[in-house]
């Protein structure tokens, strides 16, 4: 970013309190990533490596979400305008949700939801029944 930027960017800062130093040292050992004192941006190869690392991180996140977030995909598919592709997405989402359910992989989500609902009903007061927010 320009040196004359009028406002600081939160993305422009690197902040490592001392208390994290040991954790960071351990993470460096585990990940094998240990940038030198020089700014990593200066190195073309390092920039390409960072780009690949970022791409893989996002890819992993997307794949995990696609695999384990079937109910949300089903809910999204149900909002699509009727068409052949949206019908295929809907059916795939249905099949995938049922398969996940049968494999027991939906159980963690349900457990989290149950705990959250217990919190909602905390103090013996049921929250008012309100319609969902407009999509």
């Amino acid at each position, binding site marked *: 970013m320009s040196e004359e930027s009028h406002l600081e960017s939160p*993305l422009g800062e690197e902040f490592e309190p001392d208390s994290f130093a040991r954790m960071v040292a351990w993470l460096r050992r585990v990940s094998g990533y240990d940038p030198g004192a020089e700014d990593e941006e200066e190195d073309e190869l390092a920039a390409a490596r960072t780009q690949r690392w970022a791409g893989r991180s996002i890819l992993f*996140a997307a794949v995990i979400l696609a695999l384990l977030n079937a109910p949300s995909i089903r809910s*999204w598919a149900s909002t699509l305008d009727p068409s052949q592709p949206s019908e295929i997405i809907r059916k795939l989402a249905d099949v995938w949700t049922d398969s996940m359910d049968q494999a027991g992989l939906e159980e963690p989500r349900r457990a989290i939801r149950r705990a959250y609902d217990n919190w909602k009903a905390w103090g013996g007061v049921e929250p008012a029944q309100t319609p969902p927010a407009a999509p």
Partner: protein
Amino acid sequence: MLFPTMTFAIFFLFVFVTAWSLDRENGRRKAFLVLASWVFYGWWDWRFIGLLIASATLNFLVAELIDRSETRRRRLWLVGLGVAINLTILGFFKYYGFFVEQLGDVLKIFGWQRDLPLLQVVLPVGISFFTFQGISYVVDVHRGHCEKARSLLDVMLLMSFFPHLVAGPIVRASDLLPQFAQTPRLTRAMVSHAMILIVWGLFKKTVIASELSVGLVDPVFFDPTAHSALDLLAATYGYAAQIYCDFSAYSDIAIGVAGLLGYRFPRNFDQPYRAASLQDFWRRWHISLSSWLRDYLYIPLGGGRGSEWKICRNLMITMLLGGLWHGAAWTFVAWGALHGGVLVFERLWKKFKPAAWPRLPTILGILITFHIVCLSWILFRAESFSLALDYLAGFGRWGPASVATPFLVSLTVIGLGIHFLPSRAGEAVAGMAKYLPSPALGAAAALTMLVIEAVRPEGIAPFIYFQF
């Protein structure tokens, strides 16, 4: 297309992959980002893409002419023209109906009732943000704070870039144009912090803001006369938490999304409810707007120069117009007036307070400032003046709480308690996350999002600031 939706996730994945595959061709990359931004904007109403193009083209041309002008007088005339064009666009779409209505009321008072030409003008999403960006571009070129854009494409991208297009932050040309000069490069710290901001923003918006909105704030503000003082008090604090979590979530996600594409946006919030004075609050809340108002309105009006009366006048005008910027309604003007009035009071108090009087303890300053801000939020949120007055009158109506459940109160406490986290906790976590192998970082982000998905209510309401 809302950020916390599957549609946006798919859109962003496509944009991310394509943008980085064009990293050796900056021009094509920018052209692609402009097209993607138009798709993003057209998702609401494709007709206004033309308005975006026209606005960017006009600002580009005016800046070109300013740059080529040799006399100061001509430059001043051109910058005035640029500002007038932007304000005319904003005025027509946002304030036409409001001013015609007010004019009709004034004429009625004098017995000159007329049928004024009322038009049903559709408000383009984000118009307040991109017109302010246009104004800052032409003024900065005039002042020499930034060089004119190298091409129309840069101005198109500056004004249309989808992460900030509909609700800010208001990113200035001097911040963004230099970043467009070459293909950006990612750093691990930037990526890990961007992902943390996105996940954190999703939590604030889809869990805290949505629950508070649906369960507490909306029902109480809809009919304040039907609720007791306890409910009204809880909804006031609830709205303070909701609007912070909603708007700061949008800013966090916008900064994160832009960061993953390699661009840095300025910070827009800095724990605003920790402010010990209203002046301090405006250094922490919607920073890109408050600094915009300071640099393009308050300082040109005279700022802190001149007599005390002139400084107070400048403060009031700035805050009144800042209020009107939020919406064409008197409640917003009153909100601005309240803030302006308190800012003036703070200034006079600082200047004329007897030296022997003790300084207000910081904690007391925080509490007083927070409650003034909460009081002003009632004006900001109420649909009309009469509902705001009903709301205030209701504080004398004692009775049991009907909607303020322990859950919603605790969620409000969490929403406000965020302000007491270490101020750079996100950066600290990012400082560690950047050492993670990519599968670990991806899995950590995905699993956190799955927990958020598991608890959030059905459906996502638009962000509050979309209406502005």
